């Protein structure tokens, strides 16, 4: 920062916002925009000219209208909040347990030897195969859903944390040995910094899986306030605009999570550019 201030400020060109906008527009790749526009046009046309029965395909206007209706007099925001609440609680529990177990697996060779293979094998069980069992153990209400979300978040975190801590490059290990690091120093100065990228990969995976599990838990377990409940409602009552709206909201939250994870990862691991 201080280095910057020594450099004399360059002559700043007079701000010409329209020129900048023009340059940005010219620099933009129009082709993806064109295909999205084409999709929306086909959607409109399919509705307008009745290629698909209106019962199956709402017009985009209907979806927007429904959104306004839901915001003004409906419960969609409350549903979204409920869904996010379960998602975040489950994510916190699952990744917390995953980090703890992964740390133990990564630092103790004995634990890794005995418990490790079980953890890896357990990951092969399809995630949704847990739903019936968890619903018996925890019920289909809030606790069961959160338990399922936690299981989903646990799996990627534990494996990646373990890998990251255990797979320290041999050169680093030898360096630590040459410098006769204590175990504590080794963990904090070598293993943890080396593991951070992998841990973030795990947390990123957890975010995605937990969101998937959140949607799934609401579809497969008891219907409760939440986006998944609205999704089932839309498909069972044939309110197709509601169905589309719920799908779009699911996509937007997923997109938000993904972007958040990528940005955070990039910002925190700036030193890791090799």
């Amino acid at each position, binding site marked *: 920062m201080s280095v910057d201030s020594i450099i004399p400020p360059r002559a700043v060109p007079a701000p010409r916002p329209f020129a900048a906008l023009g340059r940005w527009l010219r620099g933009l*790749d129009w*082709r*993806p925009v*064109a*295909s*999205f526009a084409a*999709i929306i046009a086909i959607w409109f046309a399919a509705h307008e000219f009745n290629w698909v029965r209106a019962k*199956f395909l709402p017009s985009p206007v209907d979806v927007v209208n429904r959104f306004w209706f839901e915001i003004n007099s409906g419960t969609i925001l409350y549903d979204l909040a409920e869904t996010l609440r379960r998602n975040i609680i489950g994510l916190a529990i699952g990744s917390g347990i995953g980090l703890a177990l992964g740390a133990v697996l990564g630092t103790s060779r004995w634990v890794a*030897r*005995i*418990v*490790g*293979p*079980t953890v890896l*094998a*357990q990951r*092969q*069980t*399809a*995630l*949704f*195969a*847990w*739903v*019936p*069992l968890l*619903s*018996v*153990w925890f019920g289909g209400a809030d606790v069961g859903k959160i338990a399922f979300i936690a299981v989903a978040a646990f799996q990627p975190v534990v494996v990646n944390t373990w890998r990251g801590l255990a797979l320290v*490059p*041999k050169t680093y*290990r*030898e360096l630590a*040995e040459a410098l006769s690091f204590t175990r504590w120093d080794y963990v904090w100065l070598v293993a943890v910094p080396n593991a951070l990228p992998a841990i973030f990969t795990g947390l990123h995976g957890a975010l995605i899986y937990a*969101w*998937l599990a959140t*949607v*799934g838990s609401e*579809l*497969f377990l008891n219907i409760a306030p939440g986006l998944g409940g609205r*999704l*089932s409602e*839309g*498909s069972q009552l*044939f309110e*197709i605009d509601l*169905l*589309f709206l*719920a*799908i*779009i909201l*699911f*996509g937007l939250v*997923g*997109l938000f999570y*993904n972007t958040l994870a990528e940005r955070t990862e990039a910002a925190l691991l700036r030193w890791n550019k090799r």
Partner: protein
Amino acid sequence: MTISQTLTAPARSAPARGGGAVLLSPDRLAFLKTVLWGLSFPAGLLALWWVSSAAGWLPEQILPAPPVIWQSFAELLADGSLWAHTWASLQRVAIGFAFGALFGLVFGAAAGLSATFRAYFYPPVQAVARVNVLAWMPLLALFVGIDEALKYVIIAWSTSIPIILGTARGIENVSPALKELGAALNFNTRDNLRLIVLPAALPSVFTGLREGLANAWQTLVLVELFASFEGLGYLMVWGRQLFQLELVIVSMIVIGVIGLVLNLVLLWIENLGQPWKTEAGNER
């Protein structure tokens, strides 16, 4: 510790190569030890589970005793229903995966090879892929019904996404040095694809295929929970409804074992397809 290990390791394994007839060479002994240690934990859990069920600490409604599960497994196997359900599930996965892999490879290759195709068609596919197939399921069910077609479409869908990404990325990331080499050698398009692009993209394509198959298996369970009248997922739902937890657990175990086997088979194919790949690549 590690230094001394690296120094002594070759010395230890050298005589083993010489005396190949030895039943338990050090390598095999080490492998056997790893397996035994790995099995010790599940075995311990099983013993604990067994003892606590026998002593009545674990209610039957929470977790049935191992003998009950074994008995239910034997019954299902004897009357052929377990096999029928497994077969139904495997068939769905096979058909869905085949369609999904075909589409994924073609689309991914097109996106990797042609910048124009990529610019037009890649972003919409990415947008669709961002919303998990799970959320699309109720909508798809309205369009294609809840019969077999729904299962194929959904499995194919979730299969194709990692394959598209893996194929496109693999082709796109062919190292410029190799491309220059192809240009310098005056390769025609066919040779270029066969000798440079294909081998360079293969690892990424295989990763995509493996993830695709894992996805297919995951999605199978999901779609069978959603709507089905046979298959392993259905067996679970049925067991859950009858409160016969042993059915649920038997299907969970079968699902887990098949998932594990599928993954191993694909790893094996992956190594078979790329004989030049060595473990050394994993060490940075």
